[in-house]
Every structure is written in structure tokens, then in C-alpha cells.
């Protein structure tokens, strides 16, 4: 125990003397998380949170144009722009603006669109009336050609974005057509004294659509915001970066000869290794909670949402320790395999960036291609992130994270065994 405690104290003193190392371990991740959360805030916001300017050229000046404008405005996602420099937007001008990328969407409602819908409704009602033996009296236009509402997109717009807009406008058109048709039916029936005015209620939506999350979580707004992804993700990234100072320390100890001196002292080397492991694990856990504090207290000051940590603090602690163990073991492996601090630095940094990229740290694993998702699930960083998402987003507890914890601990043990084998081979 004395050897273990002495090693912990020695590592603590070495870390305190290394101010650059301290800054790298604690200050840099704070900056990283803040910057990444701010940068990725917009992409993480869903369409309900974002507002787009929509150029609208209303040549109809009728009910359809009004309905489309009001409907789009009501969603809260669109700002309707129908004047530029105080003048109504012209069609050619609107197309230029969209082509230039100044606006993402332009909607052109053709002249006579509402009239065409009314005429079509009248024709249907007249047709139905005739079949029912009622005189058809509603006026019908003789116009043969069909009209279209034109939607122009910025060429750089994403397919999903176009699809959402297309569906929304299609819904408005259907709704206006349905409303007008029902109005005409009611009017025809009223004219023939079949029903009293205001006594007929036609409800079209018999079945509605409501969103509800599964699981015990009540935090509906938590999912998929920048803070909920970036804070845990980049915290895990920062924790794994401890591999670089650990690897560097170990190589320097070997080069300077202090490792040989330690080996010449009677007693198990496991005490020394255990002290190193425990100390750096503790450092990574402190790092983790410091980053969580950034998510809870600092990021909201920049207008970002507050980090929600779920309800199981024990599960959070267990996974933080497991990630710390895997990160420390990785550092020991790097420090054992490589011969110079430069090799350890380069390999350590690049390998962690790769593991983080495939492990869903940069962008969530769910939006990666299927093959990359498969590869991504091999990264220890993804195991940690999955577990944290289970705790934070799905409000799960200790019993749900054991698989991830087991994988992280198993990986740590494997890396330590490889390191021991390499060291043994080096000595022999």
C-alpha cells in the first residue's frame, strides 16, 4: 500500500510541476468543448428551432396565397419576405436572389390560383348535385390548363430540406382545396334548405398524430442538441488525450533511468503500475466532471441549452471511471510500445482523433453510413458515449450500462496485458 500511495503522490507532484501539461489536461478541453458546442449548435438545432427567409411572389392575391403565407408563418420556421426595398418582390428578382444563394426558397403563387381551386370545387359540387338530382348552379371556369405553385430552391439546399418544404406546401394546397370544397358543399346544401345554417359540422381529421418519447425520460427537449452531444463527446475525447502525457512520462522515465531504479527495488511492479493507473484515472474523472460543469454552468452563458445529466449519478460516476481506466491503459500501452516521446505524441494524437471520428465524437454515429457505424462500434470512445447517452438522454441507470462498462474494462485489461508482454519482451 505504501508503494502504491507513494506512486500516487509522486505522479501528483510531477503533474503539479508540469504547468503546460496541466493546461493541456484541463484548460484546453474547456475551450474545446465550448467552441465545439457553439460551432455545432446550428447544425444540431432541428427545423423547428431554425427560421428561414422565404421569398414569396403572390400573383394570385387570393385565398391560396394568403393561406400559404399564413401557414408558413405559423410553423415558426419561416419568415415570409414579400417585399424587397419596400416594393413587392418580382418573379425574376426572386429567382436571381435564390440562385445567388441570398435566399434558400422562393414560392411563386400564380395568378388565378385561388380561382382555379374554387372553380374545381364548384365543378365537383355541381357534378355531385346533378347525380343527387339537385340543380347545379355554381359557376365553373372554362380554363383548361392546370396551374402550379412554383417552388425554387437554392441549388445548395439539402434534399431533406427540399422534401420538408415540398410536403408543407403540398399540405397547404390540399387544405385550401379541401376547405373550399367543403364550403361549396355546405353552401349548396344550404341553398336547397337541406340543412340549417351553422348546424352542420364537418370534421375531416378523425385520427390525429402526437409525438411521445419512449422510456422513463421526461426531458423531451434534451435529445439531440449541441450541448447534449458535444459536452459528453468531447469530454471523452479529452479524457483519452491523457494517453499522450502518460505515454510521454513513461518513455521519459525509461530514458532517464528512473524506471530501471524502480525495477531494482524489491516489491511488485503492480503497485507502481496500480498507483499510476489510479492517479491518472482520478485525473480523467476530475476532467470529466469539470467538463460537465462547463455544460451546466458555462455554456448557458453563451445562450446554449444547459446540460442535463439524467437521474443516475452513480451510473455517471461508474462510466466516467471506466472511460478513465480505458484511457489510462491506452496511455500505458502507448508509453510501452513506443521508444521516443515524439513517436508517442504523434501516434497517440492521431490514433485518438481517428478513434473519436469513427466513434461518433465528431458527429453522432446514427448519421454515419451503415458500414462506418459498424466500425464505429469498435471504438472504446463510442462505448463511453453510448453509455452516457443512455444515462443522460434515456434516463437509464446502472443496470443498463454494464455492457458498455464491461467492454471498457475488458479493453483496458487487454491493453495492459499487451503492454506487460511488450515490456517483458523488451527486458528479455
Amino acid at each position, binding site marked *: 500500500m505504501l508503494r502504491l500511495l507513494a506512486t500516487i503522490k*509522486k505522479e501528483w507532484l510531477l503533474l503539479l510541476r508540469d504547468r503546460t501539461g496541466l493546461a493541456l489536461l484541463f484548460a484546453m478541453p474547456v475551450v474545446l468543448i465550448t467552441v465545439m458546442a457553439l460551432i455545432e449548435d446550428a447544425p444540431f438545432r432541428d427545423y423547428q428551432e431554425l427560421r428561414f427567409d422565404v421569398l414569396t411572389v403572390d400573383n394570385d392575391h387570393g385565398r391560396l396565397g394568403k393561406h400559404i403565407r399564413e401557414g408558413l408563418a405559423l410553423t415558426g420556421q419561416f419568415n415570409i419576405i414579400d417585399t424587397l426595398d419596400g416594393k413587392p418582390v418580382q418573379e425574376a428578382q426572386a429567382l436571381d436572389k435564390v440562385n445567388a444563394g441570398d435566399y434558400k426558397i422562393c414560392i411563386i403563387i400564380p395568378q388565378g390560383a385561388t380561382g382555379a381551386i374554387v372553380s374545381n370545387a364548384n365543378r365537383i359540387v355541381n357534378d355531385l348535385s346533378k347525380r343527387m338530382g339537385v340543380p347545379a348552379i355554381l359557376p365553373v371556369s372554362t380554363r383548361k390548363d392546370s396551374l402550379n405553385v412554383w417552388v425554387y430552391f437554392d441549388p445548395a439546399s439539402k434534399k431533406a430540406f427540399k422534401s420538408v418544404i415540398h410536403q408543407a406546401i403540398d399540405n397547404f394546397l390540399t387544405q385550401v382545396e379541401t376547405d373550399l370544397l367543403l364550403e361549396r358543399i355546405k353552401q349548396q346544401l344550404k341553398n336547397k334548405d337541406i340543412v340549417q345554417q351553422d348546424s352542420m359540422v364537418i370534421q375531416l381529421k378523425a385520427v390525429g398524430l402526437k409525438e411521445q418519447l419512449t422510456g422513463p425520460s421526461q426531458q423531451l427537449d434534451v435529445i439531440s442538441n449541441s450541448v447534449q452531444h458535444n459536452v459528453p463527446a468531447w469530454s471523452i475525447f479529452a479524457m483519452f488525450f491523457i494517453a499522450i502525457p502518460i505515454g510521454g512520462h513513461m518513455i521519459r522515465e525509461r530514458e*532517464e533511468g528512473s524506471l530501471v531504479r524502480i525495477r531494482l527495488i524489491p*516489491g511488485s511492479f503492480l503497485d507502481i503500475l496500480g498507483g499510476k493507473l489510479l492517479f491518472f484515472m482520478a485525473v480523467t474523472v476530475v476532467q470529466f466532471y469539470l467538463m460537465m460543469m462547463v455544460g451546466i454552468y458555462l455554456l448557458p452563458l453563451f445562450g446554449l441549452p444547459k446540460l442535463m445529466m439524467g437521474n443516475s449519478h452513480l451510473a455517471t460516476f461508474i462510466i466516467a471511471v471506466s472511460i478513465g481506466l480505458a484511457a489510462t491503459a491506452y496511455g500505458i500501452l502507448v508509453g510501452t510500445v513506443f521508444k521516443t516521446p515524439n513517436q508517442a505524441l504523434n501516434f497517440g494524437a492521431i490514433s485518438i482523433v481517428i478513434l473519436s471520428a469513427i466513434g461518433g465524437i465528431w458527429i453522432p454515429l446514427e448519421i454515419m453510413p451503415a458500414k462506418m457505424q459498424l466500425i464505429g462500434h469498435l471504438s472504446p470512445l463510442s462505448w463511453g458515449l453510448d453509455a452516457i447517452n443512455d444515462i443522460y438522454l434515456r434516463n437509464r441507470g446502472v443496470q443498463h450500462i454494464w455492457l458498455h462498462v464491461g467492454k471498457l474494462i475488458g479493453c483496458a485489461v487487454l491493453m495492459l496485458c499487451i503492454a506487460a508482454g511488450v515490456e517483458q519482451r523488451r527486458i528479455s
Partner: protein
Amino acid sequence: MCGLGRCVFQETGSLETLIEIMTSILVQDLHKTYKGALEPSLKGLSFSFEKGMITGLLGPNGAGKTTTISIICGLVSADSGLVTVFDLPQTTAHREEIKQLVGIVPQQIALFPQLTAIENLEYFGNLYGLKGKPLRTLIDEYLQIFGLEQNGNKAVHRYSGGMKRRANIIASILHQPKLLILDEPTAGVDVQSRSMILQFLRDFNAKGASIIYTSHLLDEAQTICQEVAIIDEGKLIVQGTPANLIAQHPECQHLEDVFLYYTGHAVRD
């Protein structure tokens, strides 16, 4: 038991007592070839050093000194041969026991440069199982002996070369070893530091410790060593007291002449 065949019979009164002169180190027919090496480092090296002596293990670069020391202290395993330390065979079963008996002063400054001398010594003392006031008293005592009492709280990387060497020695003797092995302990130090180190070695030896000392400074070895063993190309070339070795060769006036006589003038890499 006279493992080495070097026994002294002494008569005390009416009793004839056999006093066996134990060896500090016995090396017999030691062979070692490192993986990937073209030449073996040790080719049947054999020697023995008496307990309580200051013995010089001398040889040119590549002679096999460091390999021999590494095998003696258990850092490296020999391919074949026997090594005993105070009659304990250097095997896995006795390795920990031997570590407690032996102190190694490596050629490198095997300390943590960012830590102070006291922090380093406390750490290594703790690893030997020493702690608290006894450890602190021991550290203070040694810092005083080595003239570092005013600089004990200074980081080692701020020490001069001589101060580092002295601190390096203290870290190796905290556990009061019976055998101290020093690998070029005075390399690159000034005259004052060298004098202090050599005086300490004499005092330490006077208290009963055996000392094995390697150096390329042969005038120093001639002064301090009671016996020397010159090895080259992994084999023992000659062993004896400096005075005897010089006397055996009328053309040699110094140990360095004897050394060059046996190892030649060709430069070694």
C-alpha cells in the same frame, strides 16, 4: 562449504575454526547473447569478488560490464551460467531478496528531474518500505554527508552535474545495501564532487559494505579499488590487486598501463 575453494584456516586457542570467506559476487561461465545481436556479449565470463572489498570491474566499451551488472541485479537473464550474490543464486526465487541486498547506482541520473532531491528520496525510500521520521532522518543524514543539505528542496533538474551524481548515489543507498554497484559514478563531475564521492565509498566500505565499481578513470580505480577485474569481449582477462597487477608487468607503472597491456590500444566503438 568452500564454494570458491578460497578458505582460510585460523587457529584460535585450542579450537580450530574454519572461517569461510564468503563472496559478495560469484559469476561462473556466464553467457549472454542479446536478440538480434551478431556477437555474444558474454562468452563464459567467470570471476568472484570477496565480501567487504571495493572491487573494480574494468573493461573497454563493449567489454560486457553493463550486461554483467544487469545480470547480477536481475534486470537481464543470462543464457547460461551461474550468478550468486552473497551465496544466493540469482534466480526468480531469490530475486527480491537480492534486490534488498544490492544497491545500484546507474550511470544515468535515475531520478525525476522535476522533483526535488527530498521528494525523489522520499519516493524511492517509500518503495523500499521506509517511511516517516526514520526515512526523513536518513535522508537528512545523507544530504549532509553529500553536501546537499542546503539544496534538498531544489528540483533535481536545477542541480549541477556533480550534485545530480551525489543525489543519484543517495537514492541507491537508502535501504542500506550490503553490496553497492556503481556504474561510472564520477563521470563528468568536478574534482571536489569526485573527492566527496570517493571518500563516501571508502567510508561506506569501512562500515562493512562490499562495493563494485566500474569506471574508465583508471587512476581513480587504482586509488580506490582493493582489487580489480579486467574483462574484455565478454571474458575475464585478469584479476588481482592493482599493486600486484602492476608488479607483474615491469613495463607498467600504472593500472592504466596494465589495462592497455591486456586490452590493447585499438579504439573500441
